[in-house]
């Protein structure tokens, strides 16, 4: 039997204050011919958009095999074989029940926790979110148990929705029932977290260092050269593509910092946050790709903008605030603007899916080994409905899901039933979560 010593999965390229994890390479297979038997890990991510979605632009009028997609989902049409679209999933715990107004606060806080948050601005209480339950178990195998990311600066205290703390509208992940995990917004901070030695730099210190700045790839070049000599041509190409993508992220961050410095050196916004929404989205998702590709983490939550946000979208000529627009009272011109915002979000998401789908891993693509949920905590933002939540999964959860379909479940089917099914795919088995009534059926290939 011919064998060969495999490259450890947790190999890092190291340099001064730098540790670059590697993507899954053929050389990491334990023995010749065994590459096919080594299954890459399954990863999951949540991409959350606020204020609901115009559902007539989201829901196809059919079930089963995905064909032509409605307007908002149109950017995903080239990848429809990779997505599963769900109908009728519901978060009862996002509803008022007996707590009156505050649907934005509730829908965000209950989205991954499956519990109704306490209505308060002081002694906050929700529940451990299911991403954290997964992270606690599978996160031991990765450098970061989970990553919590976002794009909109948001406070953590005060009243953000009718008596609900801003902690509820501005976080997705909850480590304990009283401890939300605020998202990282700044691409530079995320970059340094992923590849640095863990010490955050002040803008002034970073500016000083920029005078001498070199790429992190320069610091790890010795390790890179050593490694390349041991790799086959396929792995060398893979490594080269991967390192190039990191360099591209680095360049983009540097450009943003340069642009920001020119716009206003005293800006309060984090130093590396791009002014342009699409640019910011791309930077964050590029780093999410690298984090998944190099197995730095298997769990990511991404709060695109915070729930209830009134952010305008001047990038697409919509100067009105997002949240006020969603209370359109069925006025067609306002519905049109919300639809454009919803479509704009999906366009950015589709670009990420295209990227993650283009990366080869094992016998398929990186996307095959992911479950990337895109969705919102409200369906109709005008009426604040918590049923038929707009929800899709991109990826096949380790070639396990039969994707390319729209599955409509019965009304009131708990969203937490989907979470139980996803936990199974992540290798975490629990009987109940939130208000689950069982595992979502009809998802699997078998």
């Amino acid at each position: 039997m011919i064998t060969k010593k495999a490259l450890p999965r947790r190999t890092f390229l190291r340099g001064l204050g730098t540790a670059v994890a590697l993507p899954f390479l053929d050389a990491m297979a334990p023995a010749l011919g065994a590459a096919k038997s080594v299954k890459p890990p399954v990863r999951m991510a949540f991409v959350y958009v606020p204020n609901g979605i115009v559902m007539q632009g989201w829901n196809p009028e059919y079930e089963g095999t995905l064909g032509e997609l409605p307007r908002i989902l149109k950017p995903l049409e080239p990848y429809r074989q990779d997505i599963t679209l769900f109908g009728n999933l519901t978060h009862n715990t996002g509803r008022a029940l007996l707590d009156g107004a505050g649907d934005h606060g509730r829908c965000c806080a209950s989205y991954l926790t499956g519990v109704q948050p306490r209505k308060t601005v002081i002694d906050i209480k929700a529940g451990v979110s299911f991403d954290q339950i997964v992270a606690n178990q599978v996160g031991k195998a990765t450098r970061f148990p989970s990553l919590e990311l976002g794009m909109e600066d948001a406070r953590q205290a005060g009243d953000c929705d009718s008596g609900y703390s801003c902690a509820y509208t501005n976080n997705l992940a909850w480590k304990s029932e009283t401890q939300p995990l605020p998202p990282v917004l700044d691409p530079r901070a995320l970059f340094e977290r992923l590849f640095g030695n863990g010490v955050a730099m002040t803008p002034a210190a970073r500016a000083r260092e920029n005078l001498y700045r070199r790429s992190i790839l320069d610091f790890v070049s010795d390790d890179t050269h050593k490694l390349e000599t041991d790799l086959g041509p396929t792995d060398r190409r893979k490594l080269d593509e991967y390192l190039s993508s990191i360099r591209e992220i680095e360049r983009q961050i540097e450009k943003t910092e340069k642009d920001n410095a020119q716009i206003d050196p005293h800006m309060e916004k984090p130093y590396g946050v791009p002014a342009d929404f699409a640019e910011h989205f791309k930077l964050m998702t590029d780093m999410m790709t690298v984090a998944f590709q190099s197995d730095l983490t298997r769990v990511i939550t991404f709060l695109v903008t915070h729930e209830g946000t009134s952010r305008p979208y001047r990038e697409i000529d919509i100067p009105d605030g997002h949240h006020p627009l969603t209370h359109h009272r069925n006025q067609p011109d306002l519905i049109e603007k919300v639809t454009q915002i919803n479509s704009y979000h999906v366009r950015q998401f589709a670009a990420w899916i295209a990227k993650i789908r283009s990366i080869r891993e094992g016998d398929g693509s990186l996307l095959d080994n992911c479950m990337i949920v895109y969705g919102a905590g409200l369906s109709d933002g005008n009426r604040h409905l918590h049923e038929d939540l707009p929800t899709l999964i991109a990826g096949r959860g380790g070639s396990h899901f039969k994707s390319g379909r729209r599955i409509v479940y019965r009304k009131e089917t708990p969203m937490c039933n989907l979470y139980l099914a996803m936990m199974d795919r992540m290798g975490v088995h629990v009987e109940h979560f939130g208000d689950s009534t069982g595992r979502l059926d009809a998802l699997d290939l078998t």
Partner: protein
Amino acid sequence: MQFPNAAKPPVGVLFDSAMGRIDDVLALAMLHGFEGKDQARIAAVCVSSGDLQAARFCDTLAHFYASATTGTAAMFMRFTPIGLAEGKPAAEPAMFKPATANPAYASSIKSIDDTADPGTLIRNALTAQYDQNAAVVLSGPATDLAKLLDMYGVKDWIARKVRLLAVAETGVEADAAAARKVFAGWPTPIVTVGREIGEALPFPGESVARDFASSTDHPVVDAYRAYRQMPYDAPSGAMAAVLYAVRPNDGYFKLSGSGPLRSLVLDPEQKERIVRAYIELASAKPVPRKPPHRPDEKKDDKKDEKK
């Protein structure tokens, strides 16, 4: 959270029925009548027979009674899904065909996906009720309620939210095991309505022509006429259960026995009054609906305006 200073809304009724007899239709019409008078809220309606036509009829009825609601209230009105047990129905009563085929009536139910699992629907509805401010009415087999008792954590919700289970006994025997399970394990007082009560209080068939004339098209009238050859009077076990569940202290009935399981006893002197109540409630016209009950909405809206 429950707001201590907020007035409780009227009792929330969860109606689980086989919808196999005209009595069930009239009982549901009564509940809509109570709701129009703001004396009860329909928290959930479930069809235990698995008959999609029956579920569609229940949904049609909800739309019919909401038809007087206009403007902003109509825009924000939300129709609670109908619960429907899975499985093929033993029989599909013909009484729903005229109403479900009539384009004058609206319904959002086309397939079983447009309905909800009864257990999940009831559980969710219970979470939205004030403590001891809900009543469950069962007419037909107890299959749905037996399954409800098996759901994780639901027994505690029932004990906390429900003050009474009223059981119209006619039809309960269709699932004897489920009935035994519910009578043994239900955590609140139970009141049964014997078959003899319903038979002693027939709903007068002549009322259908006389008292339901407010609408040219009326789904209850359509169902009544299609159920059996007119004229006929209908036994009223389910109606008695609804009447007692909503107005237990109004002296319509007496109770036999003691303890958590008791039965309704008919006081002959109340017979006329009871039938009058049946007619008044079942034939009530659609009235404009109020927005959903949200105790602190007014205060919060002001806060939002300041933002």
